[in-house]
């Protein structure tokens, strides 16, 4: 037992002290924080204001566009040909051309620009025109503007799950999907990154020819488990440091850019309100309710189950696969020879990521059930299901099977490992590895 502790300590310390670990640990959160902060930051600095000149031949819309912070509208009392000719002198970035409709209302409009107008401008104009058109059509049918305002609605569908004990639980599919996917992908990366680290460690001991010195002091099994546990601790350390550092950075950045952020939020709300059509007090309350709902969505997440499940599958998924990665490492002399043996390990992992959408769209269906029960796919598949709520017995079954799978994989890997580490020279075939296992 003391020896295995020594091995774990060495595996852990040599990796944690490496420059690449320190760099990755610092760079990771900076990258992640940058991903979160950069869009906010750029939208505040590059609020490249665009002026849109309107040439409206239909005569319906001239008053229909509201200026926003980034888009200003300006009616051009020009023919479209003149406007196009004088594009450079007009001082506008875009020309919105609404042609004379052939039948009552226009079916299409054209944006002229020397540059790409950008998604924002396009979609704002589209929404704006559509809203106006709808109102115009309704008005034309003789419906009073008050009624038009009244029938504006935005309905929310809330799904509530009736539990067997009679309680109710609100379901939020989008939130659950995002949570599950993020957790599943994190597990996927963790298994690959650190599984490969175990494999490289085994290969290193073989190529450095230190393995026989080591197994004359400790059992091959101790050596293998020590490495797997040591690397797991490296992974957990890095993960923890990333979470802490990312949170610190994001909080710090939020504090530093506080003014811009509040400004931006106001802009967003304003944009939405304008899009939804103007000056309507009911829209404000809708905005508020959306914000409330988002808060509600976060507060109703079943954190203990999700975090517990994540840590469990994170750990056992890694343990199951890393034992097999260690077996691969023991069978070969260098990393290039690992390719053919990696395939059976990568297929189930990639499959569960590829089928993530299908699992999320039918979390209680047979595909989801089987993928989340088979130990090779369950760490990812079950993690996608957990936020949607999984029956206790299925969760218990899946967890038991992962643990059993881990023991089976370790037993299988240890048999290959203890023979493989002493084999040098030629690249083994699957048949030979099977013989080592049977021996």
């Amino acid at each position, binding site marked *: 037992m003391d*020896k295995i502790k*020594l*091995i774990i300590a*060495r595996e852990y310390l*040599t990796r944690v002290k490496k420059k690449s670990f320190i760099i990755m640990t610092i760079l990771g959160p900076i990258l992640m924080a940058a991903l979160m902060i950069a869009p906010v930051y750029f939208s505040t600095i590059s609020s490249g204001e665009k002026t849109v000149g309107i040439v409206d031949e239909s005569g319906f819309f001239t008053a229909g566009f509201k200026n926003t912070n980034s888009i200003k509208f300006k009616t051009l009392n020009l023919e479209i040909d003149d406007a196009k000719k004088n594009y450079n002198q007009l001082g506008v970035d875009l020309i919105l051309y609404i042609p004379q409709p052939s039948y009552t209302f226009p079916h299409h409009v054209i944006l002229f620009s020397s540059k790409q107008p950008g998604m924002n401008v396009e979609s704002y104009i589209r929404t704006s025109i559509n809203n106006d058109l709808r109102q115009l059509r309704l008005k034309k049918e003789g419906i009073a503007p008050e009624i038009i305002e009244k029938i504006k609605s935005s309905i929310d569908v809330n799904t509530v799950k009736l539990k067997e004990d009679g309680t109710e639980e609100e379901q939020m599919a989008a939130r659950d999907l995002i949570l599950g996917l993020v957790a599943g992908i994190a597990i996927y990366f963790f298994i690959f990154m650190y599984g490969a680290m175990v494999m490289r460690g085994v290969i*290193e*001991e073989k190529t*450095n*020819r*230190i*393995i*026989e*010195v*080591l*197994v*004359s*002091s*400790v*059992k*091959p099994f101790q050596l293998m488990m020590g490495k797997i546990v040591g690397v797991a601790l490296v992974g957990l350390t890095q993960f923890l440091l990333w979470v802490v550092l990312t949170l610190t950075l994001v909080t710090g950045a939020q504090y530093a850019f506080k003014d811009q952020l509040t400004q931006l939020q106001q802009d967003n709300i304003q944009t939405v309100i304008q899009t939804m059509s103007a000056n309507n007090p009911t829209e404000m309350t809708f905005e508020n309710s959306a914000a409330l709902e988002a808060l509600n969505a976060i507060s109703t997440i079943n954190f203990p189950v999700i975090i517990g499940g994540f840590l469990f599958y994170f750990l056992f998924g890694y343990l199951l696969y890393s034992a097999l990665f260690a077996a691969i490492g023991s069978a070969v002399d260098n990393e290039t020879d690992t390719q053919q043996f990696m395939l059976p390990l990568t297929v189930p992992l990639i499959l569960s990521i590829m089928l993530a959408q299908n699992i999320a769209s039918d979390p209680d269906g047979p595909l989801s059930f089987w993928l989340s029960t088979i130990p090779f796919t369950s760490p990812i598949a079950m993690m996608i299901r957990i936020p949607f709520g999984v029956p206790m017995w299925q969760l218990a079954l899946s967890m038991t099977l992962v643990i059993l799978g881990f023991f089976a994989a370790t037993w299988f890997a240890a048999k290959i490992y203890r023979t493989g580490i*002493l084999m*040098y020279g030629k690249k083994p075939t699957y048949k030979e590895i099977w*013989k080592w296992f049977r*021996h």
Partner: protein
Amino acid sequence: MDLLVAQQINKKFENHQALTDINLTIPEGSIYGLLGPNGAGKTTFIRIINQILGQDSGSIYIGGELLHPKHIKMIGYLPEERGLYKKMKVGEQAIYLAMLKGLSRSEAFQQLKHWFEKFEIGNWWDRKVEELSKGMQQKVQFIVTILHKPKLLIFDEPFSGFDPINANLLKSEIINLRDKGATIIFSTHNMSSVEEICDRIALINQSKVILEGKVAEIKNNHRTNLYQIEYQPESLSFDSSFPNKFQVIERKETLMGKQLTVRIEKEQNTTELLEYVMNHARLLQFQEVVPSMNDIFIKTVNNSSNNTKNGQN
């Protein structure tokens, strides 16, 4: 007392018999040579002693006790495929390997200080292994092998890759350790490198022990009764009047004069030959042709394979 006794050890790999009914007894405080060509089964036998492999049948006793994991710390093993973690610092790594053998950190540190100074590699304590020359790495490997003062030391092909200076250092240290009470097993296919320091040897060929015993006895049993005389003839009648009872095997011209290889049967006397030579020539050199372990090995292998062939016929 016998430190290690192996009884009827058998080991089979896939379709290859590695060891067949190996019986060996290694006395305490001796230097024991396991000799044989590559692939004879030496390394397999050593790995069984080190409990890296298990035997299919038979038993091994160390100090009278059946081989057990607790014996690991009384064995020091320098394998043929040996190396160190390249990216780790020398001292740190030596301490780690010593602790795996059961030494405490402080014990390991003290011992290492002593040996590092003795082998003049003290300055390299904080350097990475990859910065060391091959000779220095070998010194580190040797130190790590003997650091926990094992009762049984096993060296598999110890001199392969060593330069002559390091090889001599190693030899004298090994004899030192033997004098302090350690038992040493050498395994090598390079027989001339160890025959002078081994007390006993076992010749292994194709999974079997074909010859075992004290080096002196084996050599005595394989005497050829051949003698070489080198001389400068002083009379022309040297060859013509050479006594007939001595069977001349070979005549050769050398740089200094002439050389004769003569067979003298046991019952005969070498003095008669010497007297004749001294009367007829100036004697430069006279020596018995002693077979090398290599010659003995080849002869024994040939005999044993002839025997099996005859047996089959």
